[in-house]
C-alpha cells in the first residue's frame, strides 16, 4: 500500500484546500467561464468564427475586443453553466478546428499589433473520431509551434481546468497567470489514478502526487503568477473574480507592451527552454 501524501484537512479555517478540493472548485459549474470573463473584463467584444477549412468549433471561441481602449484578441475554451450550454460548447473540449481557428485569429492579431489574451478551461482536447481524422495531434502540435514564434504579446490565464495538451495548445505565452483554485495537469487525476493506481477512486491521491495546484505549479516554474480568488472560491462572487483577473491582465499587458517583438519571442523561448532542464 503506497503512502498517502495528502494532508488531512485540519480544523483551522484558513487551511488551504487540498488538491482534490481545488479540482472540484476548478470544475464548479458556477465558476466564471469565458463569457463571464469577456463580459466583465473587456468592451466591444466581437466574435469571429471558423477555421476557413471545415468548421467553426464551439469548444474554443475567439474574437477581438478592447481592454482600457487597447484592442486585443481574446481566445478561450468555452464552457457553460447548464448541461444545454455545455452541450452546445462541447464542454470546453476543442476539436482541431478550434485550434486552427485560434491560430488564424492570432495571425491576424500579429499582423495588426494586437496582444492576445487566452483563457484556459478545458478537460482536454476532444477525443472523437472526426477530431482524430482531422488531425487533433497535428493541430495541437502546430499550435504549440505557432504560438512559440508569434510576434505579439500573449497572456495566458488558466481559469479552471487546465487539461493536458488540449489546454497547453493555447497556453504558450509570455506570461502565464493562474487562478488560485484552478488546476493544470498532464493528465486528469481520475485518468492518472485509473492507470497508476488501477482505481479511479484514488483520484485524490493522484491529484496530490501530480502537483497540479497553482501554488505547486508556481514553485515548479510552470506558471508565473497566481491570481487570487474571492473568499471560498471564484464561484462565490463571479464579478469580483473577474475584477481580480482583469487587474492581473492589465498589469501583465503593461509589462509586456514595451518589449520589442523579437525580444518577446526570444524570452518566450527562454522561458520554455528553462522548464525541466536539470542537467
Amino acid at each position, binding site marked *: *500500500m*503506497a*503512502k498517502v501524501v495528502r494532508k488531512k484537512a485540519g480544523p483551522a479555517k484558513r487551511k488551504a484546500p487540498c488538491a482534490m478540493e481545488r479540482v472540484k472548485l476548478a470544475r464548479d459549474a458556477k465558476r466564471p467561464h469565458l463569457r463571464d470573463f469577456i463580459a466583465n473584463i473587456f468592451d466591444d467584444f466581437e466574435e469571429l468564427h471558423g477555421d476557413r477549412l471545415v468548421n467553426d468549433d464551439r469548444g474554443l471561441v475567439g474574437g477581438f475586443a478592447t481592454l482600457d481602449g487597447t484592442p486585443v484578441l481574446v481566445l478561450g475554451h468555452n464552457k457553460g453553466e447548464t448541461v444545454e450550454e455545455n452541450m452546445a460548447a462541447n464542454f470546453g473540449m476543442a476539436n482541431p478546428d478550434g485550434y486552427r481557428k485560434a491560430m488564424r485569429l492570432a495571425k491576424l492579431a500579429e499582423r495588426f499589433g494586437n496582444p492576445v489574451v487566452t483563457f484556459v478551461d478545458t478537460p482536454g*482536447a*476532444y*477525443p*472523437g*473520431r472526426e*477530431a*482524430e*481524422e*482531422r*488531425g*487533433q*495531434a*497535428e493541430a*495541437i*502540435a*502546430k499550435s*504549440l*509551434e505557432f504560438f*512559440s*514564434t508569434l510576434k505579439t504579446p500573449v497572456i495566458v490565464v488558466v481559469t479552471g481546468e487546465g487539461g*493536458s*495538451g488540449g489546454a*497547453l*495548445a493555447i*497556453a*504558450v505565452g509570455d506570461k502565464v497567470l493562474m487562478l488560485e483554485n484552478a488546476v*493544470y*495537469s*498532464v*493528465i486528469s487525476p481520475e*485518468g*492518472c489514478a*485509473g*492507470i*497508476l*493506481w*488501477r*482505481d479511479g477512486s*484514488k483520484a485524490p*491521491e*493522484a491529484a496530490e*502526487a*501530480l*502537483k*497540479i495546484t497553482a501554488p505547486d*505549479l508556481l514553485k*515548479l516554474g*510552470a506558471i508565473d503568477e497566481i491570481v487570487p480568488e474571492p473568499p471560498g472560491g471564484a464561484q462565490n462572487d463571479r464579478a469580483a473574480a473577474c475584477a481580480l483577473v482583469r487587474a492581473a491582465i492589465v498589469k501583465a499587458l503593461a509589462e509586456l507592451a514595451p518589449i520589442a517583438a523579437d525580444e518577446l519571442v526570444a524570452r*518566450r*523561448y527562454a522561458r*520554455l*527552454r528553462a*522548464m*525541466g*532542464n*536539470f*542537467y
Partner: protein
Amino acid sequence: MGWFERKDEKPKIPPAKALWAICPKCYSHMEKSVWKANNAICPKCNYHGRLTARERIAQTADAGTFAEVFREVSYSDHLAFHDATGDYKTKVEATIAKTGESESIVMGTCKIGGHAAMLGVMDFAFMGGSLGTGTGEKIARACEQAIAERRPLVIFSASGGARMHEGILSLMQMAKTSAAIARVKEAGLPFISVLTDPTTGGVSASYAMLGDINITEPRALIGFAGRRVIENTIHQKLPADFQSAEYLEKHGFIDRIVERKDMKAFIAKMLAFWHF
C-alpha cells in the same frame, strides 16, 4: 496521455522466455527466431514491430558514424512521485538498468547515406517511450546543436505520450520541443519525423507531428487519444484500421508509409533533394 501503461492497451506479447512471438496486429504465431530474423516485421500482415533505439540506429546511421550526445541527460524525480505500485525513481532506475539507456530517446550525430544529420531515436522499452523532462531536454539541445552545425534533424518516435510521473514539466516538454523544432525550421534546416509504432498522446501532439515530412511504417499506430477513450466518449465502435499508418495517410497527415528496408535510403534521398 500516458495510457501506455494501461493494462488493456498492452500488446499481447508472451513472456520473455517463451519461444513464440505473437503479432499484435494479426495475432499470428511464429517462433521468436523467425520474428527476429525478419527484423521484427510480421511475415503474415507486414506489421512493422518495435525495435530498440540501438537496433534502429544501426539500421539508419552509416556504419561507424553515430556519436551519441547528451547521454548525461536523464530523468528527473522533482515530484518525488510514487503511486500504488511504488516509486517512480525505483521504476525508472530499473528501466535504465534494463535498457542501458539514460532516457526514452537516444540522440547523436551521424551520417545517413552520406548526409550529415542529427539523429534521435526513441525507445518504447524505456517507460513506454514516454516524454519526460530528460527526453525533452535532449531534443531541445539536439535542435540547438543541429542549428549550430547546420545538420538536418531526424527523429524516430515511439511513445505512449507524456510521462505523468514528471507532472506538469512533462507536459511542458511538448511546448519546449515544439518551440525548438520551430527554430530548426526557421534556420532553414529540414526536420524529418518518423512516427513508428506506436506514436500517440503528447508525443504525436508535439514534435512527432511537426516534421517537414512525416513518415511512418506499415500498420503503425498513430493518434492522439486512445481508442477506448474515444469509443467511450462517442458511444460508437471505431473502424479496425482507425489510427493506423494507412488511415492517417488517407486523411492527409502522413507523407509516406515507408517499409523498414527502404527507410534509410528514403531519408537520404529526401536530404539529397533538399541539398543537404
